[in-house]
């Protein structure tokens, strides 16, 4: 069996895309990867809405922009965003990055992605782990897209607040009742227009792993 660690470790969130369409067979593969994600009790609560219509993508992009921008503007005003990006020393670059964030443009890219897939979960027919199942499906989609040479990004923004989640449902004609479907995110997909030069640094395993019990850092000798 092949080791997919290279696919996992080279994947990055891609937010800029060429306008070229994503072929149908690739869309099918991405959806197929999602369908095989682990799911509690094999309930498979996920449903996928494939969106290519530019007008719908514009509406979703606008919703995401307003959602992220409304939060990040407030965080900037409280000084929290400046702390988050304090590692950027060049003041001009830092100001531009911060503006990109608090304007909400950071989440607007559904407008420019040739393909957007909304991931929603049924709360009605047998469901116990909907957010977790959906998250696993999204990860499968991201890995499959990357393995096909596509770029993708998981965007929670337009579904982050209760009011925005309702607007998101209305755009896609999803029943809006709180007991019907959970909207967790959309995944934007396209041919990458950017090569991310600096992958975000990851914490080392040493920082993340305990052995046998919480807090125990030394690796036991299992002989």
């Amino acid at each position, binding site marked *: 069996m092949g080791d997919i660690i290279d696919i996992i470790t080279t994947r990055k969130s891609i937010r800029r895309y060429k306008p070229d369409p994503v072929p149908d067979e690739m869309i099918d593969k991405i959806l197929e990867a999602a369908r095989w994600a682990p799911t509690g009790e094999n309930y498979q609560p996920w449903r996928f809405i494939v969106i290519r219509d530019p007008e719908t993508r514009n509406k979703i992009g606008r919703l995401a922009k307003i959602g992220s921008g409304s939060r990040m503007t*407030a965080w900037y*005003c409280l000084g929290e965003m400046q702390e988050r990006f304090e590692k950027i020393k060049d003041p001009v670059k830092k100001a531009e990055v911060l503006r990109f964030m*608090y*304007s909400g443009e950071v989440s607007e890219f559904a407008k420019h992605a040739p393909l957007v897939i909304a991931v929603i979960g049924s709360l009605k027919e047998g469901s116990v782990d909907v957010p977790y199942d959906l998250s696993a499906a999204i990860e499968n989609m991201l890995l499959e897209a990357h393995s096909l040479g596509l770029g993708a990004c998981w965007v929670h923004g337009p579904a*982050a*607040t209760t*009011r925005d989640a309702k607007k998101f449902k209305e755009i896609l004609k999803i029943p809006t009742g709180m007991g019907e479907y959970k909207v967790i995110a959309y995944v934007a997909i396209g041919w990458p227009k950017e090569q991310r030069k600096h992958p975000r640094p990851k914490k080392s395993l040493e920082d993340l792993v305990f052995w046998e019990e919480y807090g125990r850092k030394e690796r036991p000798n299992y002989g």
Partner: protein
Amino acid sequence: MDEIEYCNDIMVRLEELLFHELSGCAAWKVELIGVDFIQSKDIKGNTPPGVIQNCIQEITTAGLVKEMTYSIGGRGVKLELIMRDCLHLPKEVKLKKDGVKPYICPITNMILDQLIEKLNFETTFVAEVSIDEKSRECKTRSAIYEDEAKIGLVSDWSEE
């Protein structure tokens, strides 16, 4: 039985649970908590001060909060509310004691809801909830966006 205490205790457990499930973004999901009360009132007003003042009138008359003031600043984006002796204060104190930073202010949600419902504000966001159990005072700072153009209108709230 103290019915207020009973209801606050139930809210504490629900808030703990929601935070445990969702971590920080739990605070983004709770904007409708509290709005039923204010939606049952016929709040009038054509401007933010008018609507806010009328909400405060209903809230204090009903005894949900004893004293309440507001100010708008930050280029029209910041709404600060100061509340003394809120019915929900014991909930916030208990939550804080249990190690969860208070994140649901039903009273603030009421006012933000009416800015959206009555004045068609684009969106709002509760940015900060702070409580002082000694003075029995709560302060919230929210971002209020009249329209899309107000998103990204930044200023330094610490200087106000």
